[in-house]
């Protein structure tokens, strides 16, 4: 599904990713853990195509297509979805208007017909019910006045609606209380399927109790330094990141 080879990225002369290699298979849920400043969020932005970052080397292939040659919107249409750590508020843009515009833009880019309004409403309402998002929220401007938990649920709603192939969850657990964490995790789990893979970025093992990963990667200083199964997350929870910080210093 996704193959990252020797990715080297800098921002304003600061090298953040140093030859990162990562493979996520079809249907796999891969978790990336690592200390602050290890480059996790940078990786998520570079996959989604944020322009502030300069890619010096390497490639990111989604089913063989090089994402680095595509604009962010083309990547979205190709199936990339980034659930933002801090979803943005867009005053004046109605949530439904936004959802419909995004969905139809992606469909147009793929040469598909736009969704009719009744079909669209059905799709949104179905997804919203599962995520316990009430209709009032959908009537408001996107994310404006939403709580942290509501914003994260709105990200998952978008994911459910857009049906992406490759989902990056950037610290989706941050700012969530226990109930919100459960709702969001159930939303993600419901989307797990063949033909769809996930990259779950988190500091804490807590999220991985709810979204159980197939693989866990440890990232440090812009590279993947260790890979294991879900038990690796538990080890990290017990031992902390000290070992990886030392290896950075070495």
């Amino acid at each position, binding site marked *: 599904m996704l193959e990252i080879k020797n990715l080297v990225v800098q921002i304003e002369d600061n090298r953040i990713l140093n030859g990162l290699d990562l493979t996520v298979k079809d249907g796999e849920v891969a978790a990336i853990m690592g200390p602050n400043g290890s480059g996790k969020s940078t990786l998520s932005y570079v996959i*989604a*195509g*944020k*322009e502030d970052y300069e890619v010096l080397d390497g490639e990111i292939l989604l089913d063989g297509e090089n994402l680095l040659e595509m*604009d*962010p*919107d083309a*990547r*979205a*249409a190709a199936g*990339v*979805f*980034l659930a*933002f750590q801090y*979803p*943005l508020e*867009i*005053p*004046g*843009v109605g949530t439904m*208007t*936004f959802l419909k*515009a*995004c*969905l139809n*833009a*992606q469909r147009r*880019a793929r040469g598909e017909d736009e969704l009719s309004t009744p079909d669209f409403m059905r799709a949104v309402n179905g997804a919203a019910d599962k995520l316990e998002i009430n209709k009032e929220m959908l009537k408001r*401007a996107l994310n404006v006045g939403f709580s942290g938990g509501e914003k994260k649920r709105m990200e998952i709603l*978008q994911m459910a609606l*857009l049906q992406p192939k490759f989902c990056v969850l950037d610290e989706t657990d941050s700012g969530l209380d226990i109930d919100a964490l459960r709702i969001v995790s159930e939303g993600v789990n419901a989307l797990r399927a063949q033909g769809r893979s996930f990259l779950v970025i988190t500091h804490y093992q807590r999220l991985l109790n709810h979204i159980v990963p197939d693989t866990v990667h440890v990232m440090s200083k812009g590279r993947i330094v260790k890979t294991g199964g879900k038990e690796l997350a538990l080890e990290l929870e017990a031992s902390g990141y000290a070992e990886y910080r030392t290896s950075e210093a070495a």
Partner: protein
Amino acid sequence: MADIANLRTNAETGLSKLFETARASFATEEKIAREEAFKFFEATGLPSRRVEAFKYTDLRAAITDAAPPAETPSAEIARSASEAAKGFSGIEAVRLTFVNGHLIEALSDLARVPAGVSVRTLSAALSAGDPLLKSLAPVAQARENPVYQLNAAFMADGALISVEAGAKVETPLHLRFVGTGGNAFSTATRVLVALAEGAELTVLESHEGPDGVAYQPNDALDVTIADGAAFRHTRLNAEGDAAIALSTLSARLGAASHIETVNLVTGAVLSRHQLYLHFAGEEATAVVNGAAMLGHGRLADSTLLADHAAVGGVSREMFKTVIDGDSTGVFQGKIIVRQVAQQTDGKMKSDCLLLSDEGQMMNKPELEIFADDVACGHGATCGAPDEELLFYLRARGLPKAEAESLLVQAFVGEAIEAVTHEDARAALIGTIEAWLKARH
């Protein structure tokens, strides 16, 4: 001053000649008022940037020729021009159609004016000495303005609209101004609206005309809103791309009365919309919004004066300017709170979205407060579309142009949301969408 008066521009000399020709046709009663108005204008001339109120909009430099007043068009020309006008055309309304500044009765719904409303033509009112004429020029400060006085000297046609006490008129009145012709011409219209106590009226006003013709409309709307009455006004300036469009709205607000006026500018190479509000009665409220979509070397000026002269007035002013290419936006807003006007609540805001590196925005907010128990504030912002928001939208699949358009719509939409009349609001949003589509 005498020296300056001698250095008259070609346009000023032309205006004097045009006035001299026109005055022969004025009836005695109106002649004096017009002569006074023109005398006032002649003393100042076309205002240049040396005049503080015109610092950013130099009419002396912009108006190089005095365009001749447009004749009443033939029925055929008027009909085809009117049919081509699209502004608010889909909205169920009672229409008064002005072609080249002349009220065309055959294209107007004078026979189906709603109950409680009376409409007379300005020319009939002037020759009959209609008592309603005493409500002309309801705000003193407007009478010190050369653009308004020029209108007073030349006003060729218009209407007097009065609404009976307590009449809540549901069907909007649409003042449709259409310009037509291949050569430069000028128009001067004056519409007077008088709402008696507790009356309610919605007025839509659209201005359209030919591209590539340097025509010069100067339109004035005088509104008197009695106690407890409400006036709602949605205005669209979609003038041709070479027009120099000057306009003034002056309104006198009675106690507990309300005015809502929203102006969208998408047309004219140069436009200046002047608003004079006089809060004469206690606890009057005003929502005054404006939006301008500018490109291709254009300039749009919104100049506002809110004069709070009674207790407890509330005014909300929000202006949004979208600047593309090498265009210029101007906002001048002044809130005066007189000593008697305690508990005034005034908030004024001008925001600008810069879509290019070459554009510019001039903001001049002013507060003059003589009362001590008031809540007044003003703010101005200027900036490019937020890169983070653009990325968020693009990461969801919206191409760059579409993402930018959505942000522009959201930005301008905040000012348009204030339009109470649903169809009028939708029409303005549609106009904005068309502007954005044409841009890409």
